[in-house]
């Protein structure tokens, strides 16, 4: 990945952290406290299935991305990093 893409990826991670904290009402967590490779569900951030639905909506609203295949979704939603990379590779310009 070239330097430009790394910068873009870092920016997407930052935006995603802010979106998650704000829209999922994550209490006592600041966006900057979320690690770049933080696991989203179960251990890690401790999100649940209702949060997964909210993340689907967030991706639609903010990046024009639709995740319809749940098998694919499992991989995409594994960590903040996998989510950010999916956005980088698929977002509509």
């Amino acid at each position, binding site marked *: 990945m070239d330097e430009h893409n790394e910068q873009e990826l870092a920016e997407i991670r930052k935006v995603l952290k802010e979106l998650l904290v704000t829209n999922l*009402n*994550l209490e006592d967590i600041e966006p900057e406290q979320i690690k770049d490779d933080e696991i989203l569900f179960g251990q890690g951030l401790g999100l649940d299935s209702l949060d997964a639905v*909210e993340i689907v909506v967030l991706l639609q609203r903010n990046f024009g991305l639709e995740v319809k295949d749940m098998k694919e979704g499992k991989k995409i939603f594994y960590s903040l990093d996998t989510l950010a990379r999916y956005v980088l590779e698929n977002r509509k310009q």
Partner: protein
Amino acid sequence: MNIAGIGIVFNRGRGLPALEKALEEGWVPPTASRYSVSDDFIKDRVILKEMRRADTFSKMACLAAHDAVADSGLSVAGKSSLGIILASALGPYVTTFRFLDDILQYGDAKVSPTVFSHSVHNAAVSYIALCLQSRGPTLTITQFSQSFYQALLLAEAWMLEDRCTHVLVGSAEQCDDILEYVCRQKIHLAEDGKIEPFLFSESPKAVPGEGSVFFLLDKQETSGKYGKISIHGDNGVQGLDMYLLECSGLTGDEAVYRNDAKAGPLISSYTPLFGSMMSGIGFSCAAAALMLKNQRYYAAPVQSNPHNAPLCGGHQSAPLNTIRCISYGCHNEKMEFTLKHAHG
């Protein structure tokens, strides 16, 4: 129906100590153009630990309901004999409008399912039942006028038919820029933040408020440390110590209260402490119950009195047995209920 416990969240804080302090201190101007509940008052990591998704309306109601049960000292977990009734004029309208805004902004396929689920009026009561692990009947009465009174009637019915031994009855209202805007268009707002109940004006001024109050009602007389609520019976003034008038400027013409003011007993109104709410009589009921428990008259917080009504002019500790709460709806329909001291 005996009042076994009370919980309250309002602009001056959470809990009975905050209510008692407000009654002692009297009126203070709001920090903004309405009486808002500070976020600090609805932060509780223990009671709300499973409620991070809940909106402000649900959080206020849940905390007030929880505190009413805690105040009673009764255990309700797992019981199917506890009913829960929430009264509200508008329900969680802030969340409803957020949902509608999202449809307009993003389209119906991109709205948050969480926001939608919280716009359902019974969401707050569901949270309360979850929080208390209660398994009894739950209901939300969303009625613009006199919803708290309707909740009391239903609570009594549930008890009479032995459906419930206890009923949590409460009211909740939320206020944001939208409601304030509507109020500004439809009624007169007091720019100085002062509700003046005893002007009994044909065009009174309101100051929108928000909060939640709950009462744990019990069939057993022994638990009624605040006395009992009676919604039927003699409406005469004999034996009455005080009328609490729900003049808050919201329902238009308040001249109708003048006859009650002339009727005989001492009168008071604590709407300037809570702000104007369509189900605000619940908050007045809490003030009345606390007065009966403490055997203390609290001075009316705003005392402008051009009609020379017999106001409760100062704090005084003295025997106090019976208080009647009176409220008129938008079409001057009168609702009243009486609180009697446990030993009165």
